[in-house]
């Protein structure tokens, strides 16, 4: 009698009940699968942008395949909230902090050490510079990269659709 009662509790009142409701218990499972998919496929934004960067436009674009092999060098004017402290001249941001050209060497060595031996030669430096930055600072960065031996470079840009 007891056993029957518990079953009843789960399946609703016995006969006379119409078509059973569609169980929505599996819906969250579907969502979780999607969630795990996203967790695997994407990468957490490793650094908050402290400089303003509007990418220039280009057509000869190549995708940087493996995110793990890319180190980012941001160049731009500091964001509003940092302007008081850091001024409004373009600056370099590496990972999460404002840095100078001379800090590039250490930064890239640190990034390299995170990779496996055979991957180190494949590392690319992604220069994410704002389009209004002048070539002075960019050339300094490039010269420093050449001195360090980081020759694989990618200038981040957005695709351009119209003609010049």
């Amino acid at each position, binding site marked *: 009698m007891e056993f029957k009662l518990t079953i009843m509790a*789960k399946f609703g009142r016995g006969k006379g009940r119409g078509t059973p409701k569609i169980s929505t218990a599996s819906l969250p499972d579907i*969502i979780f699968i999607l969630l795990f998919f996203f967790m695997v496929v994407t990468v957490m934004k490793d650094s908050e942008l402290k400089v303003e960067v509007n990418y220039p436009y280009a057509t000869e674009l190549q995708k940087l395949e493996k995110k793990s092999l890319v180190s980012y060098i941001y160049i731009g004017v500091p964001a509003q909230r940092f302007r008081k402290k850091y001024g409004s001249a373009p600056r370099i941001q590496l990972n999460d902090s404002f840095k100078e050209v001379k800090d590039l060497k250490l930064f890239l060595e640190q990034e390299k050490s995170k990779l496996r031996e055979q991957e180190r030669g494949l590392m690319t430096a992604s220069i994410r510079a704002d389009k209004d930055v002048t070539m*002075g600072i960019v050339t300094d960065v490039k010269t420093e990269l*050449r001195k360090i031996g*980081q020759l694989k470079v990618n200038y981040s840009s957005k695709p351009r659709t119209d003609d010049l």
Partner: protein
Amino acid sequence: MARRESPEVNAGSMADIAFLLLIFFLVTTTIDVDKGITVKLPPWSDEPPPEMKLNERNVYSVLVNANDELLVRGQPMRPGDLRENTKNFIANPRKMPNMAETPKKAIISLKNDRGTSYEAYIRVYNELKAAYRELWDDAADVQYGRTYDELELEEKRTLRADIPLVISEAEPTSFGEEK
């Protein structure tokens, strides 16, 4: 002991929680499409580069000043015309004496000013790279009937051996104002 009915968990709200988590994830992560112009920088050497006897006709000088104006081989030019002009120089289909002897010998020399905007630099560099890419596509079409991207690595190498991408960047001048 009174029998308690096991409470039914409403599975519907589980889905809401899962949706929230998903949206959180979508917002905080980036499938940041990382695209850009790939460049291989020349290795650094403290010594000055060896003096090479370059034939003037094989050198295509591109200058960009602090006003983002383009000067190609001494003549002002609009960025829109750069691609065609560069292709014409390298391929030299009409065998002009003041243009490259062969595509193999063509050298593009690019010089900016420290005050040139990055936007202008990328615009120019893009056009130069595009000129080469179009020449490679044409050659790939003639030799293999496909576009350059569709070729095998070895085939690409052979093509590039005939039409090497040589863009030599000089130290920028400092006439303009740096920001």
